């Protein structure tokens, strides 16, 4: 029995069928596994919210009723082991950064990171405070920066759409444009590593500050300090029996 041609079948309005080629007359479709996996990877990006402060509230607003990240398949999960994207929302302090790094290491590959808000991007006006690290990209690699203080939920969604594009390019083997920190385009600042070096030199004689800065320096995995930590002369003992 001959199969009747299905000529008046209209394509479904579903993103999956953008990738499928329907063959006229036959009720099956062909695609490549790669395209199917790319569709799945870009439309089910589960988010691990590394929400520490104000941006976390806007992140909650983005996940809640009005903007609703579920529309693009992004479910918020409380555990790093099931997630693809880490959204770093809020100020990251020296005390918190090792925890962020550890949670990032617990996420399975492939994984991406979105830095949300100016604190996560550069430290904002807390950048010169002793306890705040100047941007999360000194500890973990960042794929998309979403500037704002805090960014609107719509801006976060735009950032995630941008991330989807990057994932598509990466899976297709095409060159992915390198992401620049937004502030670097606007003004020239003192390089943060240089500032750390200056601080190290200034406080090399103080053992407590030195220990703090060394622990902070261990986070700088991407751009190590050139020349290492300056030498410290042992302080002369003061007081005591004399």
């Amino acid at each position, binding site marked *: 029995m001959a199969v009747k041609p299905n000529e008046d079948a209209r394509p479904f309005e579903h993103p999956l069928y953008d990738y499928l080629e329907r063959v006229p007359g036959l009720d099956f479709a062909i695609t490549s596994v790669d395209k199917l996996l790319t569709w799945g990877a870009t439309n089910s990006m589960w988010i691990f919210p590394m929400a520490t402060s*104000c941006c976390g509230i806007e992140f909650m607003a983005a996940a809640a009723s009005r903007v609703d990240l579920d529309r693009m398949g992004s479910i918020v999960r409380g555990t790093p082991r099931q997630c693809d994207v880490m959204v770093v929302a809020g100020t990251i302090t020296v005390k918190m950064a090792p925890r962020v790094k550890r949670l990032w290491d617990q996420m399975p590959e492939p994984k991406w990171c979105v830095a949300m808000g100016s604190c996560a991007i550069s430290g904002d006006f807390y950048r010169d405070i002793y306890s705040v690290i100047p941007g999360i990209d000194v500890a973990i690699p960042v794929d998309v920066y979403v500037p704002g203080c805090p960014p609107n939920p719509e801006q976060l969604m735009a950032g995630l759409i941008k991330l989807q594009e990057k994932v598509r390019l990466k899976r297709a083997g095409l060159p992915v444009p390198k992401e620049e920190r937004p502030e670097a385009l606007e003004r020239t600042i003192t390089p943060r590593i240089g500032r750390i070096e200056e601080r190290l030199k200034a406080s090399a004689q103080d053992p407590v500050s030195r220990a703090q800065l060394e622990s902070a320096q261990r986070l700088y995995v991407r751009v190590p300090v050139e020349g290492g930590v300056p030498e410290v002369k042992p302080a002369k003992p003061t007081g005591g029996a004399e």
Partner: protein
Amino acid sequence: MAVAVEAVATAPVVPTKAFVPDPYLDLDTYEADADLMTLSLGPQHPSTHGVFRVVLYLDGEIIVKAVPHCGYLHRGVEKLCEKLAYSNITPVLDKNDYVAPMLNEQAANMAFEKLMGIEVPLRAKYLRTLLAELQRIASHLLWLGTFAMDLGGALGGGTSVFMYCFRERELILDVFEELTGCRFHYNTHHVGGNRHDIPPGWPKLVHEALDTIESRLEAYLVMLEHPIFVDRTKGVGTIDAQLALELGLSGPLLRASGVDHDLRRDAPYGVYDLLDVQVAVDGGGDCLARYKVRLAEIRESIRLSRLLIDNVPQGPLSATKPLNMVTQFKAAAGQVYVGIESPRGELGTWLIASKDKPTNPYRFKIRPPSLHAAAAVPYVFPGHTLSDAVAILGSLDPIMGEVDR
């Protein structure tokens, strides 16, 4: 808010050893054959509302000791404010209690005005009071949503109430965005008055938002009148009046412990002396009492906001000239303390000015209500199960930006 449904009778969970909660419990003196387990809750945990960390020592499922750790969001705000001029401090303080930024701005600027002897015009006072009440509604709505989410799947799928609360909170944020241009971090208060005047059509917008919130609140609170909700909150995390006063709790936590104290009525600022603030008090001291008090405050804030928006007088909005240089505001040497009623309690600002630096504060101390709420953890957690700990922490509502500063 009458929760009429009685609690479901369940078998009581009895700890291995009867004890009174002791925050300084020496674990070596605890029962020798007890199999204690150490559990670190936080700093990244969905129900700690930020980066709060509690180390719990568990005997089975019962907490015998809880040790809170803070400092994961320490941003050195007080030190930063000492370096900034008076006009530049306001946007920094927005990030302090990020659920109610309006109140932070107001507290600091009231301290500056008191130190400099500036009298705020009546229109600005009305507007500040109105913004504070609207912010209180938004803050309590966020609390209700996250609290219901903490209590979990028993409440109609866990995130249902959260979704409803955020839908209503967005209405308040729309009102603020119309006025100041920002959803939060408004920077609308400055020394001597307010920066943004009421745009045309804004009172109508406020009325619409308030009407919508009031009508919808009744609709979805039915979901919380549920035996499981009562069972999980009634008698859980009881703080009696004595302990609450010793810990320095304030705001809804203190009123839920039966102490009738509200700065809006007892030490009025702004135009609260012209209003008749009805203070909600509940003697229960448990999570259910805190829930009832906060809901009553939402309704009271809606009533006060309606009164205020209809009666804003005409006149100037600021007693000072517009800012043209950051060193414009200078203070004489002295010190002041100003406390206002934030959604979480008494938000105090202690400001010392020296004559060496007339444009900067010499010392800027913030008295955050959340710090005292977080300090209640070792007193309240012991004796409860692990699942109750999440409910108690949700009902205490500490904001870590305020605790760590």
